């Protein structure tokens, strides 16, 4: 059932040379069809209204003072084919009706007409246009979603990774996607899936650490009725769900050892055994796995099976971190700016050069995800249309996550000595103060005491680097 407010927003334009008919039709149709009605006697004004007011339905007479209604019909079909145009005339001939319908009229009426009949047709026409526009909108949405990849960026590092991903799509081999948190591992999996022959089916994603061990097993492989208490029905696992498609095992580094053995069997034999069933089932599923952990280290300490690692690592790709693709930061910034501008219905927002430089030089341990969240917050909260570094500094990102080990010395080497020194000093100070504040649970006096500095000097530094003690409590 369509909401009455939505119906009230629907628009009908009536064009006729007789004022009385216009007034009568407006009165009848606005009431019976629950819509806004505009009336005009002139074709020029009608054309203007079609462009600016964008009605859903145009009801036009054929005989008009300046030119005829069929010309207006022709104009409507060329300007916006989703508009439904109904033609009416007092001097109707079959030829005229055929002509109007062939040009694209939704319906044709002879005057005088029955009010009920015309309001029924106008209602149907309003509904037709609504459906056509909705269909068009959804198609556009699908088209944007169906792009081969949703990665944004032109840097060499990213383009090389995309190139690998698209090529991996042509094969059926298992791919291990590696990269820091927030670098887009799921988008990478989607890119491989879309470039593969399985693209027309939906990819299944399993977030491994999100589910407890025994649930993860039943979710992945499914179970038979009676396999355990509460198993009242047979359930297909996610592997069966992904039959003929791709399955992404997200954060594979976190799955328990017992399940790793079972997964090994799936990868080796391409078959699964649902819980409580003795038979195995052959499956045709492409497996992709992603992780931000050091699997080699996990193998050494015995928490990841070496044979599974080699089964998964048939092909692998490492996604670049944001600091490896700094040249893409302006592009990403404008992309997210436009995205959130539309989402929060703000207009004409922009970024100052100073802001762009700030974003490029800032450290992003959470990579694109952190960058995106930062932009999201800034667009929502900024009081002005031009975003300045201050809008980002208010971000309560825990600065304690900056550690000396994350400094990228290679990116510093590309900067002039003075800038590099400033950058390193700023990163060091943020990290130093942050670590102390974290240790002292945000207690500034205690942190200052530990650093050997006076409280005021410590606070001055905190202000300089926009650190807030509340973020560490």
């Amino acid at each position, binding site marked *: 059932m369509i909401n009455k407010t939505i119906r009230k927003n629907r628009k009908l334009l009536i064009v006729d040379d007789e004022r009385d008919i216009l007034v009568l039709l407006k009165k009848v149709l606005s009431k019976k069809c629950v819509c806004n009605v505009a009336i005009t006697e002139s074709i020029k004004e009608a054309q203007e209204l079609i462009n600016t007011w964008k009605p859903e339905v145009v009801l036009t007479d054929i005989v008009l003072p300046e030119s005829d209604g069929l010309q207006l019909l022709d104009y409507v079909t060329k300007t916006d084919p989703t508009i439904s145009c109904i033609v009416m005339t007092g001097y109707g001939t079959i030829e005229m009706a055929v002509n109007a319908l*062939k040009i694209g009229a939704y319906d*044709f009426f002879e005057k005088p007409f029955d009010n009920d009949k015309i309001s029924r047709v106008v209602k149907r026409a309003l509904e037709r246009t609504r459906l056509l526009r909705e269909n068009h909108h959804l198609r556009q949405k699908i088209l944007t979603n169906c792009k081969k990849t949703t990665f944004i960026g032109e840097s060499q590092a990213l383009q090389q990774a995309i190139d690998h991903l698209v090529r991996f799509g042509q094969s059926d081999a298992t791919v291990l996607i590696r990269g820091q948190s927030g670098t887009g591992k799921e988008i990478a999996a989607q890119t491989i899936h879309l470039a593969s022959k399985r693209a027309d089916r939906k990819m299944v994603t399993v977030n491994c650490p999100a589910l407890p061990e025994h649930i993860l097993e039943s979710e992945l492989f499914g179970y038979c009725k009676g396999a355990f208490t509460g198993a009242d029905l047979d359930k297909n696992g996610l592997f069966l769900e992904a039959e003929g498609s791709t399955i992404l095992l997200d954060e594979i580094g976190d799955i328990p050892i017992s399940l790793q053995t079972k997964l090994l069997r799936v990868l080796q034999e391409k078959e699964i055994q649902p819980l409580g069933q003795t038979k195995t089932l052959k499956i045709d599923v492409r497996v992709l796995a992603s992780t931000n952990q050091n699997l080699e280290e996990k193998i050494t300490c015995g928490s990841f099976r070496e044979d599974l690692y080699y089964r998964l690592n048939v092909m692998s790709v490492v996604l670049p971190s944001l600091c490896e693709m700094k040249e893409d930061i302006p592009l990403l910034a404008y992309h997210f700016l436009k995205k959130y501008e539309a989402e929060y219905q703000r207009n004409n927002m922009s970024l100052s050069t100073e802001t762009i430089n700030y974003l490029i030089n800032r450290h992003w341990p959470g990579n694109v995800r952190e960058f995106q969240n930062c932009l999201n917050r800034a667009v929502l909260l900024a009081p002005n249309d031009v975003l300045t570094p201050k809008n980002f500094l208010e971000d309560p990102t825990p600065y304690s996550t900056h550690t000396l080990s994350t400094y990228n010395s290679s990116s510093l080497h590309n900067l002039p000595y003075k800038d590099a020194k400033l950058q390193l000093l700023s990163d060091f100070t943020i990290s130093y103060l942050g670590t102390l504040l974290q240790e002292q649970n945000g207690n500034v006096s205690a942190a200052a005491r530990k650093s050997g500095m006076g409280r005021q000097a410590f606070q001055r530094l905190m202000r300089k680097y926009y650190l807030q003690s509340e973020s560490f409590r």
Partner: protein
Amino acid sequence: MARIIILDDVKDACMLVGKILTKQGHDTTAFTDEEDVVDFVKDNPVDLAILDIKLKKMSGIEVLAILKQIQPTIQVIMLTGYPSIETARDALSKGASDYCVKPIDRDELIEKVSQVLIKVKKNE
């Protein structure tokens, strides 16, 4: 040359239209019975059907809908002696390419047929 079928319950009218179009080099087949037309279209590819509306058992618009279901690419011209805006609207919404009124002038018929056949060629 196009494959054209003509359906009219009056045999003479069928033959007359058939004769005009055969002279233009088309391959024409005339029918007076609706079921024969449907059977014919099931087995033979047809470019254009010219249908009368008042028939013996069905209406020409019903035949139009059946033919479009069997061969969606088939073009149809309705040719009727009892025209009305309702039937014109109905025929065009069911996919007829044109709606003509009897008696039809020879030249007008040839022109309408050639206009529709240009559309067939374009679709090919």
